[in-house]
């Protein structure tokens, strides 16, 4: 029998209420070292299918302990045998303790920013240009546009840092992660500071009407949970 693993937390005596997980399975606690893991029995050989129900169930189980503790969520699809799971926890005990200490008392807030700035050079070129010149001009516009976008993303990220960076115990910023997003930020915020963080962000948004903000949270600290694997740290591969 394999276990589907949802999250790891500091030792929990019992779940406050029965929790239903992936495929309607009951969620149990497994204690390993000084941790409690939320797991459910899983019959399949591979990870469960990505469905709306399964994804929401995974998140709901992680959130079920969020009021009493700050868990480290596992990524969707983590299926292990109990001996494998115990071996992993025992092997990485120190790193996991350090991660739990880092996120204790915090939640994650997510800010994604879209720029409405379409400041691209769309000046029409004279019709008599040959195809080669037209091609090179187009490439030049693409490169200049891309560079401007990166510069804008850096400026917006720095501005966001000025506005709410002081609230974040940790942050993770991605610049231009997609064609539309110019900044994607995850902030680890002490729970008692969430309201102030939101208020500050709301004020800041009013200062930048040219930007579109997508703010969500509080989340369990998904972005801040992973530990560097020893072989990655040593050999630089993942």
């Amino acid at each position, binding site marked *: 029998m394999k276990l589907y*693993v949802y*999250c*790891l937390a500091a030792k929990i005596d019992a779940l406050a209420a029965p929790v239903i997980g992936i495929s309607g399975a009951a969620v149990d606690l497994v204690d390993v070292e000084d941790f409690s893991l939320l797991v459910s029995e899983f019959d399949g050989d*591979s*990870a*469960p*299918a*990505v*469905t*709306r129900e399964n*994804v*929401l169930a*995974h*998140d709901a189980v992680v959130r079920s302990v969020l009021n009493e503790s700050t868990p*480290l*969520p*596992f*990524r*969707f*699809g*983590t*299926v*292990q045998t109990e001996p*494998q799971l115990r071996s*992993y926890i025992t092997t990485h005990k120190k790193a996991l303790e350090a*991660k739990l200490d880092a996120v204790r008392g915090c939640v*994650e807030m*997510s800010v*994604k920013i*879209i720029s409405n700035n379409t400041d691209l050079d769309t000046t029409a070129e004279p019709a008599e240009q040959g195809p080669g010149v037209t091609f090179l001009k187009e490439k030049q516009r693409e490169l200049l546009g891309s560079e401007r976008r990166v510069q804008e993303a850096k400026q917006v990220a720095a501005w966001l840092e000025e506005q709410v960076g002081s609230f974040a115990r940790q942050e993770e910023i991605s610049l231009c*992660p*997609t*064609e*539309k*997003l110019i900044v*994607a930020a995850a902030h680890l915020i002490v729970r008692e500071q969430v309201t102030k963080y939101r208020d500050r962000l709301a004020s800041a948004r009013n200062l930048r009407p040219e930007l*579109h903000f*997508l703010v*969500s949270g509080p*989340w369990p600290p*998904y*972005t801040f*949970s*992973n*530990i560097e*694997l020893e*072989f*990655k740290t040593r050999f630089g*591969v*993942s």
Partner: protein
Amino acid sequence: MSSPFDQVLIQSDVEQLEQADLSLLETLDHVLNRGLVIAGEITIAVADIDLIFLGLNVLLSSVETANEVLRKRE
């Protein structure tokens, strides 16, 4: 790394996405692309087609995944 949230944003006008869609996309982004990873290989399937591959420490998800989940929501 590409996330379902990012991929759908490329294809859709954010103004047209409902708040519930955004919430679901954010949940997908967090649950599928982030979190503690145990070294190993995991293949996640949607409708019996392998769409997500986890090679050691890297999980890639696809726009099909996000679209599939969004379709099932309807």
